[in-house]
């Protein structure tokens, strides 16, 4: 198989992607207790059915990664994080809408 795949394998994190609490903590160098606090405060919302282990999908992985960097770089504390994350997502949605509406009127 010489040189057939020259590039490292790229994998899209899609609907099927999920991480356990432990895996998510390992990936982001995060204490499990802090992540549990974040889940309670609405930073991330794991998929869970009763009695089952928490699973975090791609969007939640992104939110938690973002929360880590906002905490580290800007000193945001837990109560501020869900608000900022929600507003950032909202801003993205509104930007898309503005772009589309601009095309209609320009």
């Amino acid at each position: 198989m010489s040189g057939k795949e020259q590039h490292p394998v790229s994998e899209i994190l899609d609907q099927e992607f999920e991480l356990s609490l432990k895996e998510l903590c390992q990936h982001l160098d995060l204490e499990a207790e802090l992540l549990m606090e974040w889940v309670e405060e609405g930073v991330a919302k794991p998929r869970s059915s009763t009695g089952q282990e928490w699973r975090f999908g791609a969007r939640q992985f992104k939110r938690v990664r973002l929360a880590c960097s906002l905490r580290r770089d800007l000193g945001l504390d837990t109560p501020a994080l869900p608000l900022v994350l929600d507003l950032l997502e909202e801003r993205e949605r509104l930007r898309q809408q503005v772009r589309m509406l601009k095309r209609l009127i320009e």
Partner: protein
Amino acid sequence: MEFKDYYKILGVDPGASQDEIKRAYRKLARKYHPDVSSEADAEARFKEVGEAYEALKDPEKRARYDQLKNSGWSQGEEFRPPPGWTDGGGSTRGFDPEDLAGFSDFFSSLFGDGMGRGQRRRTNVRQPGRDRHARVEIDLETAFNGGVRRLTMAHAEFDEQGRVRQVPEQIDVRIPAGVADGQQIRLAGKGEPGFNGGPPGDLYLEVTIKPHRLYDIHGRDLHLTLPIAPWEAALGGKIPVPTPAGKVEMNIPAGSSSGKRLRLKGRGLPGNKPGDQYVILKVVVPEAKTARQRELYEALKKESDFNPRAGMEGL
């Protein structure tokens, strides 16, 4: 290498208190944080500000830097460390080399000694390498068809003397067809190297699709605003519509106004569940340029009882 005036970068006076330095850093970090900022050069500015803060936030490191700065160096000047310059034990807190990835050679030459004292280095336990996170901006055509993007990243390494140096690294990333805006791509094993035989971490890339001349991207769906003539809007009919895979014919129902949305199923970004392309109609009214064209508008006016402002009466 260039001398860096860390005070200038943070916009503070060389006599600023530690508190003022922290406040200035926080303010600039908010402005340029790549996850929050919409400034064009946010990522580079954020790194620069972070490096300046790293040098100035620790009073011992700051004192070492001040000593050098006071000997007459200024921003942008060609810099070589004075003979006999060492970190002098100024940095009591060791760094992991990953923490310094992307910092300038100037920083490494000032504080590069004794950096090998990071906590993770002290143990003999097998430890996996850290993940790396980066962003990649692609155009819609690449998202639609897939492609290869060359990323230039930097990682920090120790040389034989235990000094940190920045090693540029190029990675060719295959962008899978159908990746959506905001989605993440994982490249297993392309993160930081592991310790004591531990496996390397992964590289995660967050994809941004550049704004396109024609299409707006909503998840896997594409939105296209399509100009049509008033008679096309009134009479309906088949008109050609661009899609990323080429032109298709689309049927427009009679009596379509501006803002009407039509769907071309499966014409969005490819994937297990391909997205759709939505066509938003925009009626464009041509000027009546000839006498005959005017006449036809006049005839239509006489013939029609249409009142576009019917809902406004009595207001």
